[in-house]
């Protein structure tokens, strides 16, 4: 029973080879094996979005993915967004718009925003609400979060010469 399996994960650009128990979840490996505690565990049942990470570019709740199922996948966590000391402009927009209160939902919100803007660089307010509907903020600061997403989208918008503003 419970035979460990070797998995290969590429997390924030770094290759890891780990022996995991079948019942370990992706969030367990990220937080307790790799020390990436930016990914938060809220409800543990996929309802709150706090544990959201990008898996092969798609936003998923890492509490509902077995580590063995993530074998060979590319994972991006909140720690993987900044470039050294330079915050990602979505992170910067959240700070500038005051979209962070207690901060527990913020990593998930930012990764869900990244997934949205990668797919749809010019979202409407309705599209933002729909894309973030799986991320709960219990400080209820949704208005400023939506403003931050709009601000990030505006900054990410390519200029006419195809070069991004401030990215």
């Amino acid at each position, binding site marked *: 029973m419970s035979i460990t399996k070797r998995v290969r994960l590429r997390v924030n650009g770094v290759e890891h080879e780990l022996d995991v128990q*079948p019942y370990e979840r992706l969030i367990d490996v990220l937080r307790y094996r790799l020390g990436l505690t930016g990914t938060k565990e809220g409800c543990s049942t996929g309802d709150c979005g706090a544990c959201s990470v990008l898996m092969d570019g*798609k936003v*998923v709740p890492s509490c509902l993915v077995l580590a063995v199922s993530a074998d060979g996948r590319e994972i991006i966590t909140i720690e993987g967004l900044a470039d050294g000391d330079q915050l990602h402009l979505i992170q910067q927009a959240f700070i500038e718009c005051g979209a962070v209160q207690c901060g527990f939902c913020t990593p998930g919100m930012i990764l869900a925003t990244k997934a949205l803007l990668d797919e749809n660089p010019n979202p409407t307010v309705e599209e933002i609400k729909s894309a973030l509907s*799986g991320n709960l903020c219990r400080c209820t600061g949704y208005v400023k979060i939506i403003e931050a997403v709009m601000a990030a989208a505006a900054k990410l918008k390519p200029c006419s010469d195809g070069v991004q503003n401030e990215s």
Partner: protein
Amino acid sequence: MCRFEHHAPTTLEEVIILLTKFGAEARLLAGGTDLLVFMRHGRLAPKHIIELSKVNELTRIDETKDGFIIGACVKLRDIERNESIRRCYTHIAEAASQVGSVQIRNLATIGGNLCTASPAGDMIPALMVSDAELRIAGTNGMRTLKMEEFFKGPNETALSATEVLVSIHLPPPKPRTGGAFFKLGVRNAMDISIASAAAKITMSESSPEVVSEVKVALGSVAPTVILSRNVERVLIGKRISDALIEEAARSVMDEVKPITDHRASEQYRRLMASVLTKRALKLALQRAIGK
């Protein structure tokens, strides 16, 4: 979470061998958005998990001259975003887009939604009105079931312990046909429906105002999703009108058998089944005429 052994077969044959070997101790893992939650809550404690995502034929969408073949492990997000499905089976894409959140839809699969067999499963009404057929593999080869034959009760399907749902087959879309899906919850996202309705309507070729075929399926208002026979009786062969749609919508209130629970009362669900039927029929009609 309970302790289990993980298996990741790459062919259907291997899946069935594993199911035969481990029997009731095994559970199939598709997207995991139900299974891992049930395991977390201790409602299920399988000793063996058989993951299906490595079986190629389960993860494909094929468009053929005989219609669409959707693999059981296709993600709901991929159904929601598939251009052909959005065009030909709008109501199926609509239903997929209303399940959970983006995060959930990136994991959850169409087959998982069917096999969990919740009376509130959002894909079930949409597929039921689409004449979808289910291909099932087992120790004796393949068999095909209609949607109505698959559901036996809340969380109960016709699958035996050694069978696996392989794909969902949709017949080619008919001309002068439209479909729609509506779901009612307390909030739009991450909510189990209080009631849901899917409708599909086909207008006659010779007299385009006459209904030649219609189907309405209702979720969360009976132990399983149900297909309304009353709506067919009221509408087929008749010249369509608002009054007739009202009558069809009222007729479902005699067919539903809702319960009262913390989400809604029996009376409210009965009424909402009628309201959603009306909305779904109206939008389906608009789409059928628009084509």
